[in-house]
């Protein structure tokens, strides 16, 4: 057991993860409850969440989690039974409790101090709720179930506090045979037995050492011991079963209710462990049966000819009502179904997936290289099989990339809560609508867009949506709407944050920007350009600074975050009606469709979505850096000069016309190789500040090509030009 600390921490990790999922589920249900009445299923699920957290928390000895969750569970139990009704205040309280449980668990994970004071405050509130409720601690409430006889239905695991009169006189008998691997799985059998004290008093424990091998042959990591426990408890069978939930798959756990028939004892125990007489003695030792009863039962059993199935015996003997068996069977089926659902997805560590994708990327590169070499051989048969191979490899690449794709709903799911809390805080009524939560994008993107999106949503709620009075005056519905909308468009994903608020005030933004020296008062700007000013660092039009926004930090951070993801942020606004922030992001950071060109002896990749057309450089162009194309001047950059390339030049250079946003520019190159799929290889910190190059890739022949960052390249060139002009100005003047 001494070595179990590592395993235990793993199990604790699993517990954390499970608890987080359960808490998310609780949150979702609570939010649903606020919108509409939630059904019985939801209430049961809610209860189960708290119950499971409490149960598994107990296993790990997280007393504070257990203590707090227990009270929450009581309230949820009351809700489930209908003796309490949801109202807004209760939901708020429960959401706070849910947050608090989550904080407690975080505190466990970080080994920081438990916020006990907060627990106490919330417990007082919860007890307040329990105290007011009809059918509270006072017995005989309207819905309190009548104390059940010896057997309780398994589907109704909880009993009222006032049910303690039942079977206090007798005790449960638990026959525990933990799986051999229980210690290796990070579970301590003793912890389970100790946890039984939560439900009652352990009257006697008999340790079964039959399986224990010689000292030399014993593996200290294997659990050889069995336990027979007699437990005085008023808990239901399901509750006691729940204690062993984590080990029930690999262990033999037999729970016999008080006042069970002896024959039943023996039958069940025999079914499990075989040797009746040995077990019988143990039962006598535990005080579960008397020696005389045992004798009789054994004799009786010998007379019985056909061994019947346990369930049948139980029903026949009237020990268990048929409903219990049915419920148990149902439960088994349910558990099986659940397991099936679980088996449909496989959890894989992200780095293993990344390693796979990396390798597949190299496979594609190698495949393309081989294909190109075979293409030069003039052997059609070989070329055909190389074609096939390459297309298969590309399929595999696509599939491997799809492994990393997750639904964007994962990000969206945290917004209902945010919108709810923020709208309460702002005193506005705001409804959140989510569309396209199933749209998929790369896992790494999902992790990175959460914060920018959060900022945009908060901004929309704070600045976008007007107060209820203003909305009424403008003839809009009082309840404002924020929409989150995701959809795929030509190889990228668009995410819109749209509000039906007042829209952006062009004049005010313009005025503020002039005041803050961002633009000159004479500047002539399109609506788009004015709206984009709100993305400038330090810009804020909010007259008052709220908790949420208005400090003028944020939108520029959002913009730089999005640009770091190679995305763009567009702003559309209809004054008085709506504002839409549209993020356009690539689906993945690992691969882009590129356009492969050559300058001198170097290779460059231009992101394909920026390429508009390729034309020949007019021969009479001379030294100027623009030419007329369809009536418009098109500035161009000679990559050869900018990059100081000295390799062989082409007599007739070409121009690649690129576009980003609303700007167009030409890039003069020597050679055009065409479209290619490009696996991005980061260049590392040494090149972090190189303008114009965003990464590198390995092209078909094994050479390294540079991926051009077009906006940065053009910015760089115009900066250089501007600094020349600045130098030239005094001379001209």
């Amino acid at each position, binding site marked *: 057991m001494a070595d179990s600390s590592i395993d235990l921490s793993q199990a604790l990790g699993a517990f954390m993860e499970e608890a987080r999922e359960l808490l998310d589920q609780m949150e979702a249900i609570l939010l649903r409850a606020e919108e509409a009445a939630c059904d019985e299923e939801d209430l049961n699920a809610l209860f189960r969440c708290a119950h499971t957290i409490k149960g598994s928390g107990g296993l790990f000895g997280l007393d504070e989690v257990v203590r707090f969750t227990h009270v929450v569970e009581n309230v949820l139990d009351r809700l489930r039974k209908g003796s309490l009704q949801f109202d807004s205040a209760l939901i708020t309280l429960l959401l706070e409790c849910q947050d608090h449980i989550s904080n407690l668990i975080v505190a466990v994970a970080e080994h920081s101090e438990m916020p006990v004071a907060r627990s106490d405050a919330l417990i007082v509130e919860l007890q307040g709720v329990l105290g007011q409720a009809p059918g509270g601690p006072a017995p005989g409430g309207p819905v309190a179930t009548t104390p059940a006889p010896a057997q309780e239905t398994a589907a109704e695991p909880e009993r009222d506090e006032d049910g303690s009169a039942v079977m206090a006189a007798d005790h449960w008998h638990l026959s525990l045979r933990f799986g051999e691997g229980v210690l290796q799985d990070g579970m301590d059998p003793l912890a389970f037995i100790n946890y039984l004290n939560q439900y009652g008093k352990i009257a006697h424990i008999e340790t079964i050492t039959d399986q224990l091998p010689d000292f030399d042959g014993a593996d200290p990591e294997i659990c050889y011991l069995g336990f027979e426990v007699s437990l005085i408890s008023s808990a239901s069978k399901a509750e006691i079963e729940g204690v062993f939930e984590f080990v029930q798959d690999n262990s033999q756990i037999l729970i016999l209710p008080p006042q069970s028939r002896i024959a039943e004892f023996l039958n069940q125990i025999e079914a499990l462990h075989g040797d009746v007489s040995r077990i019988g003695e143990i039962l006598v030792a535990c005080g579960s049966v008397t020696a005389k009863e045992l004798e009789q039962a054994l004799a009786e059993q010998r007379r019985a000819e056909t061994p019947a199935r346990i369930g049948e015996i139980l029903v026949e003997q009237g020990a268990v009502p048929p409903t219990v068996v049915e419920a148990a069977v149902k439960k088994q089926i349910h558990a099986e179904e659940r397991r099936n659902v679980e088996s449909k997805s496989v959890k894989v560590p992200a780095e293993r997936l990344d390693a796979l994708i990396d390798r597949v990327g190299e496979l594609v590169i190698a495949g393309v290289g081989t294909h190109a070499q075979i293409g030069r051989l003039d052997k059609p048969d070989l070329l055909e099989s190389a074609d096939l191979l390459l297309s298969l490899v590309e399929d595999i690449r696509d599939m491997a990339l799809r492994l990393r794709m997750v639904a964007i709903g994962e990000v969206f799911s945290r917004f209902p809560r945010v919108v709810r809390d923020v709208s309460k805080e702002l005193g506005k009524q705001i409804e959140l609508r989510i569309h396209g939560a199933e749209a998929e994008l790369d896992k790494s993107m999902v992790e990175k867009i959460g914060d920018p999106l959060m900022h945009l949503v908060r901004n929309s709620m704070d600045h976008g949506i007007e107060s209820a009075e203003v909305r009424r005056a403008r003839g809009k519905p009082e309840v404002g709407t924020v929409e989150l909308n995701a959809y795929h468009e030509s190889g990228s994903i668009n995410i819109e944050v749209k509000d039906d608020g007042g829209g952006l005030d062009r004049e005010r933004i313009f005025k503020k920007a002039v005041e803050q020296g961002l633009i000159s008062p004479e500047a002539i700007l399109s609506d788009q350009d004015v709206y984009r000013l709100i993305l400038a660092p330090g810009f804020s039009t909010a007259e008052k600074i709220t908790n949420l926004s208005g400090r003028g930090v944020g939108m520029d951070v959002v913009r730089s975050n999005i640009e770091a993801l190679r995305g763009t942020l567009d702003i559309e606004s209809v004054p008085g009606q709506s504002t839409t922030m549209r993020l356009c992001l690539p689906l993945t950071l690992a691969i882009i469709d590129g356009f492969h060109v050559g300058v001198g002896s170097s290779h460059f990749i231009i992101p394909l979505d920026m390429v508009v057309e390729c034309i020949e450089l007019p021969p009479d162009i001379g030294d100027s850096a623009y030419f007329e194309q369809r009536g418009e001047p098109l500035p161009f950059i000679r990559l050869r000069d900018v990059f100081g390339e000295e390799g062989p030049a082409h007599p007739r250079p070409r121009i690649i016309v690129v576009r980003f946003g609303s700007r167009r520019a030409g890039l003069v190159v020597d050679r055009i190789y065409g479209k290619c799929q490009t696996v991005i290889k980061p260049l*590392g910190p040494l090149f972090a500040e*190189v303008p114009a190059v965003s990464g590198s890739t390995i092209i078909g022949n094994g050479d390294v090509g540079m991926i051009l960052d077009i906006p940065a390249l053009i910015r760089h060139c115009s900066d250089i030009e501007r600094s020349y002009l600045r130098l030239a100005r005094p001379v001209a003047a």
Partner: protein
Amino acid sequence: MTTDVAVAGAVSSPVPSNPGGKLAIEGFAAEQLYLAFRLSDEVFAIDILRIREIIEYSVPTSVPMMPPSVRGVINLRGSVVPVIDLAIRFGREATGVGKRTCIVIVEVQHEGATHVLGLMVDGVNAVMEIDAANVEPAPSFGTRVNTEFIEGMARVNGKFIIILDVGRALSIEEMAAIKAVDAQNS
């Protein structure tokens, strides 16, 4: 030229990031292994634990707007590795390409992560053991190498060899900063 890289890469099997020498070091703390190499006529040495492999020279792909000390990048079995010309880094003439020119792949720490750099050298001499007792501090001038880059001067067979402080001589912060200045000047 490109297939050369692949072949060279395939032949020299990649040394795991933690070469066996690290264990041996506990045994004899006084003597350490160094890789000695030539830059024009001078011999330098680098702690062998920093060296990942040595590959045949192949023309690096130049990266635009980088200072001349960064010759470019090469494809090392699928990873893109920058190649540094140590001679230019030390303020000398660029390293010419000869028969014995090769690229020494070293590991450098930067902001908690290990990065891989290639050093272009005129030839690799040997792996040698140097006793710590034979290492002297660098003189304040006369080596024609920035003293900050020098860990010590080792006396081997009556001659001095400059042991480089890889962390300083190949400081990624510093090299990236040089580039920023150069880009402004250009």
